């Protein structure tokens, strides 16, 4: 329990650091939210008045403390450019990115684990080599380009979906998921390649361990050794990798949302950065960071669940 408490404390500290960094960054970069809002017709008086109204003329630390206090109270503030609260804006967009990320994760798990097992078991076979080569090539294609290729292949040639034909989940859930299926492939593809490769090499590495030899000595066949003994051990680094991949995927979804014209969190983030819409940027970044940190916390828990060694250490300290 003490362990969990300490963990949460560390997480909060990290989050605080992230928020401070973002706030700092957006104080130093050029571009004035007041000017951004008023455009080319703005008079200097109007800009000055708006700056005052938005509280931009206060010192940096005061603004940060102010933001932090209202954030702690669950108030994300109002968007500068959209006349709505940040919370409303994000609540609308979170399900989109979330659905996409979850679909990608599901694809990664569902596809790469069997493939990893297969290639590790049939190490050196033709299919193994083929998958290896395919993996290497997939990893070498820039993500946005594979997104474009997927659009070309499935959208234009096979006509499985309408490029840019995003359907909101509020109007049509199946259509929504159907459209997100393809961008999810684009996000998942390089991760699948990496996971298969990593899982394969981990399995092969673990297969050489003494305990695997013990398992063989009891009369297990190769499959038994792989599934019953080696897989669980080999999953440990995979889980860590998936945690990191998740962080990557959130960043990657920014690009993919752009390619597939999906109005998700990444799009909101990009536009609000360029619009200097700080309340939105802060909320998005802090929430993303929170998700990343929480996911890593969950990974820790899964890790403990799988690896009894960590469990003990956790209890001890």
């Amino acid at each position: 329990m003490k362990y969990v408490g300490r963990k949460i404390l560390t997480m909060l500290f990290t989050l605080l650091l992230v928020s401070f960094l973002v706030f700092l960054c957006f104080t130093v970069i050029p571009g004035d939210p007041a000017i951004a809002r008023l455009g080319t017709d703005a008079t200097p008086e109007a800009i000055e008045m708006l700056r005052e109204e938005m509280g931009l003329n206060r010192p940096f630390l005061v603004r940060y403390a102010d933001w932090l206090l209202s954030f702690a109270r669950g108030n994300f503030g109002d968007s500068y450019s959209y006349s709505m609260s940040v919370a409303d804006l994000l609540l609308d967009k979170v399900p989109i990115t979330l659905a996409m990320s979850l679909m990608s994760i599901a694809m990664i798990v569902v596809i790469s684990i069997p493939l990893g097992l297969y290639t590790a078991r049939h190490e050196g076979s033709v299919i193994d080599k083929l998958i290896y080569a395919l993996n290497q090539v997939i990893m070498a294609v820039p993500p946005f380009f594979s997104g474009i290729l997927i659009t070309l292949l499935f959208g234009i040639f096979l006509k499985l979906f309408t490029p840019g034909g995003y359907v909101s989940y509020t109007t049509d859930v199946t259509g929504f998921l159907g459209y997100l299926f393809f961008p999810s492939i684009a996000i998942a593809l390089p991760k699948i390649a990496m996971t298969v490769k990593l899982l394969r090499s981990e399995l092969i590495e673990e297969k050489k361990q003494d305990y695997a030899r013990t398992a063989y000595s009891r009369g297990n066949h190769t499959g038994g050794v792989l599934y019953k003994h080696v897989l669980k051990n080999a999953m440990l680094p995979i889980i860590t990798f998936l945690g990191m991949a998740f962080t990557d995927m959130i960043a990657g979804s920014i690009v993919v949302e752009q390619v597939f014209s999906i109005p998700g969190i990444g799009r909101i983030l990009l536009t609000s950065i360029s619009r200097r819409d700080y309340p939105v940027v802060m909320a998005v970044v802090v929430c993303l960071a929170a998700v990343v940190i929480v996911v890593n916390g969950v990974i820790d828990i899964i890790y403990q669940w799988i690896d009894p060694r960590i469990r003990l250490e956790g209890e001890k300290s």
Partner: protein
Amino acid sequence: MKKKLKFNACVGGILTGGMLLFILTGIFFLPYDPDAMNAELRFAGMSLAHPLGCDNYGRDILTRMLVGSRTTLLVALGTIVVGGGVGTLVGALTGYFGGWLDEVMMRVIDALFAFPSILLALVVVSLLGAGKYNVILALGIAFIPSFARVVRSQYLKLKEMDYVKNARIIGCGHFRIIFVHILPNTLSVLVPTLMIGFNNAVLAEAGMSYLGIGVQPPDASLGRMLSEAQTYLFAHPLQAISPGFAIVLLVLGFSLLADAMEEKGCRC
């Protein structure tokens, strides 16, 4: 296994060598001015004079590839020098000394890690303006956490080795131990990581170009050329094929080499 290893090293070596040779050629010889525009040659197809055709400004694609791959190489190398350098330093110091320094630095690294890298790049670019050196800086900073983590775990492991203790007993200073005694031993892990980092930098540069925060026109880089070309993907696919192919070859060659090295590193 053995055979495949050699195969990896061979193919990787050939691809990487080929690309390096290509880039090297570009330093000494350019068939045309890479930025010279010519309205008559817009979207010219393949010909003897222009083996890869011309782009939307009538610039020779081969020439731009020669220049662009050099920029890409520069950006990727710069990124791993910045990211790898700082990451290694941070990882080495935190891993070796531990204690509160480790705790504080790792929190900062965690924070950096939880920060979407694209956002980081955007911030750096907004702050300093776009351009290849700022791209290097942006990607370099974004890459610090991963290198720092790898190096730190190596140092955590290696500092317990007896030869490190021995070095302390014979009176070596901490910094001598960190950089002269331990660092060379992290290379077997660090070098493949750096090579993978190189690949990620090439891909990230392409991604940044796509988002319009990469190398500045008229400068060419493979990523920039690829993202410029996608506007004309339907009418003039040729313009996208060459840089796309070059990126794939470059990354593929490096990752095959990295694989081969990693295997070899495990062995000895």
